[in-house]
């Protein structure tokens, strides 16, 4: 140890000039010479001579350091190995070591204090992690592209979720790798604008194709400049406003419905202060929205109706609606308006009533029409009563003279017939026929009038039975006729027994009449049923009719046959049509001259 290690003046001055700690150790790791730089750690250089290096090393680093020393002694140089040294005051500092052994059997070592550098690095890392955590957790998509290629260099979780692409797939790629050309071109155009302008650019709405379909973004793009002011990166922050937009549109639609509604739509608080007042409310009541907003709704109520509003408020407070009811409201000019009002509570998200919304309809016109209708109805009823009286007297008063005409013609023929020649007797026969026809006509007209006016009484009717009885009566009146009758069994319907009897009597009576020239007449009553409706029919093989005149069939007094062919008054089918009409049904006919006729009818919902 007596041999000075850095005795050479030149070497010595370098040894001491170095800002780093320099030391020469024996191969077993004991200090032989230490530069003055060690004083920065509180030691005197001489204090350390012959102390083993390991004694100053942090206990946690000793094993590793010992191993490295052994390596160095065996000839492996040490570069940049870091461990902690204990200062004189007990604190520790990080040293970075370079060391190697020399042929004289010593170890030359240089140690640099890297404590500050390590601390700075740690705090930088911490700051980075902090920023990363913020960027990562921002609920909007955050991305960074390099300014040159516009390739993605950073991306956050919200962005991954939005696009449905993991960031690892994005790094190094650009918009054209992920989006349709048109979209990518738009994105990059905006990127360039941002970089060229050197300032924030806002894109209020941009569509973007994602794995979850088309979304709408609101994006802000900012250039990130280096110290020289050259843009290096582009930072983008995008908010997904798809739902917001949809909500916005729905709100706009609703708002326009409210605004344009023909009904007045009025919102108010539970305390009665008006919160909304649409155009129809302005028109209906004469107050503008400015005049009415924040005003008490009681301005619309005539004094006598003050209670009504309390009642509505109470209902709404309990979350109940009030179905439309008729009432009156007062307009700005003081006149009272007949209205129909529907009220419902306005609820907050927790279901608590916070206000009242009202839909008010002006029913002045409606009420006026109703009153007119009522008057018209009363007038019609009065007219009907008169008609009743008239019919009654027609029945009585017109028949009496007819009876005289017929009766006395008969008397003349009987008592004085010998005074008349054949022609005269024939003419008196005509007089009798005419009187009887007119009597029949009067009866038919009375039936038609009765069918029109009488109250409908609904019950279950066996139509088959009714048809059978009607045909029996017809057969009884003309027992000499040869008629095949077929009646489908079990046809039951809801209807008015008396009216349906009149209808069937007419239809079957017609069939009977118009088959009178057939040697073998056939009459059938039956029905065809589909899912939609049951259609009844009366079919015969009689004289039929020309379909060209089918429209005339059901008109009063219209006949398709002369009286000399088939007698009749032309009232029967009109009566049938009224009966069926009053049952809400329909009647129609098909026929061919000399090939029979079929009359169909349905029975709908009665009046």
């Amino acid at each position, binding site marked *: 140890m007596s041999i000075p290690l850095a005795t050479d003046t030149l070497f010595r001055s370098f040894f001491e000039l170095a800002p780093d700690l320099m030391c020469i150790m024996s191969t077993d790791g004991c200090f032989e010479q230490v530069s003055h730089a060690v004083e920065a750690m509180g030691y005197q250089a001489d204090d350390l001579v012959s102390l083993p290096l390991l004694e100053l090393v942090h206990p946690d680093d000793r094993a590793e350091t010992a191993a490295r020393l052994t390596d160095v002694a065996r000839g492996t140089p040490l570069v940049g190995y870091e461990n902690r040294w204990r200062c004189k005051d007990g604190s520790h500092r990080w040293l970075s070591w370079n060391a190697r052994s020399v042929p004289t059997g010593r170890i030359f070592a240089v140690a640099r204090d890297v404590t500050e550098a390590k601390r700075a690095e740690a705090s930088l890392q911490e700051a980075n992690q902090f920023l990363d955590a913020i960027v990562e957790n921002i609920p909007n998509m955050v991305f960074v592209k390099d300014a040159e290629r516009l390739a993605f260099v950073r991306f956050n979780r919200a962005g991954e979720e939005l696009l449905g692409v993991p960031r690892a797939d994005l790094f190094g790629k650009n918009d054209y790798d992920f989006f349709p050309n048109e979209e990518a071109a738009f994105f990059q155009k905006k990127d360039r604008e941002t970089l060229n302008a050197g300032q924030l650019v806002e894109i209020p709405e941009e569509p973007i194709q994602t794995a979850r379909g088309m979304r709408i973004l609101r994006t802000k793009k900012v250039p990130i400049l280096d110290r020289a002011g050259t843009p290096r990166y582009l930072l983008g922050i995008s908010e997904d406003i798809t739902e917001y937009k949809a909500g916005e549109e729905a709100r706009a639609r609703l708002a326009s419905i409210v605004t344009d509604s023909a009904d007045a739509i009025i919102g108010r608080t539970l305390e009665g202060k008006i919160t909304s007042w649409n155009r129809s409310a302005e028109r209906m009541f004469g107050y503008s929205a400015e005049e009415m907003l924040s005003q008490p709704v009681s301005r619309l109520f005539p004094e006598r109706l003050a209670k009504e509003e309390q009642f509505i408020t109470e209902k709404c407070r309990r979350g109940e609606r009030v179905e439309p009811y008729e009432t009156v409201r007062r307009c700005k000019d003081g006149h009272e308006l007949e209205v129909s009002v529907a009220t419902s509570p306005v609820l907050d998200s927790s279901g608590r009533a916070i206000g009242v919304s009202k839909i008010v309809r002006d029913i002045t016109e409606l009420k006026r029409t109703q009153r007119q209708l009522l008057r018209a109805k009363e007038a019609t009823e009065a007219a009907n009563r008169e008609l009743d009286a008239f019919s009654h007297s027609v029945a009585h008063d017109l028949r009496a003279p007819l*009876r005289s005409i017929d*009766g*006395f013609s008969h008397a003349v023929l009987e008592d004085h017939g010998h005074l008349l020649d054949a022609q005269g007797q024939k003419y008196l026969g005509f007089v009798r026929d005419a009187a009887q026809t007119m009597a029949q006509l009067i009866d038919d007209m009375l039936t038609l009038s009765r069918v029109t006016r009488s109250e409908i009484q609904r019950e279950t009717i066996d139509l088959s039975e009714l048809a059978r009885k009607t045909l029996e009566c017809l057969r009884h009146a003309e027992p000499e006729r040869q008629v095949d009758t077929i009646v489908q069994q079990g046809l039951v319907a809801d209807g008015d027994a008396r009216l349906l009897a009149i209808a069937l009597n007419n239809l079957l009576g017609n069939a009977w009449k118009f088959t009178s020239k057939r040697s073998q007449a056939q009459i059938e009553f039956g029905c065809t049923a589909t899912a939609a409706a049951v259609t009844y029919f009366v079919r015969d093989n009689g004289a039929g009719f020309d379909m060209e005149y089918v429209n005339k069939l059901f008109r009063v007094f219209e006949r398709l046959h002369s009286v000399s062919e088939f007698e009749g008054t032309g009232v029967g089918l009109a009566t049938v049509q009224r009966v069926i009409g009053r049952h809400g049904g329909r009647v129609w006919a098909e026929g061919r001259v000399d090939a029979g006729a079929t009359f169909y009818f349905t029975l709908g919902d009665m009046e």
Partner: protein
Amino acid sequence: MLGTETEKVILLVEDNPMDEELTLRALKKSNILNPVVVARDGVAALDYLFARGSHAGRSSSELPQLVLLDLKLPKLDGLEVLKEVRHNELTQLLPVVILTSSVEEDDVARGYSLGANSYVRKPVDFDHFSEAVRQLGLYWLVLNQTVPVGRRA
């Protein structure tokens, strides 16, 4: 003037002289030869039945065998006459047939509810009319056994 007790009188209440004539003719044609008393309004009909007014002095116990009653009559209409007849103890069992032009359901229903024994509509065709009258006469004057005259319910 109205025959003996054994003769069965028909009271025809009818304001229309032509209908009266036709009814009488029809009765005659049907060989119904009973005496017919004609009353031309409701009051006259009741006067006859209750032997008052122009019929005062007639024995009120002698009731007709059959009343043929029209409905539309001057002064008191047929239904009012019927009501009065059924109301009175003396006449309450008297056979009354309504013979009229009207077949209004109301008239038919009220006629029966007031105690009419039959309701017959006068047909326009005289052949039918005389047939109706013939059947009425046959039934009420020949076939039907009435309460003995003067007997009260």
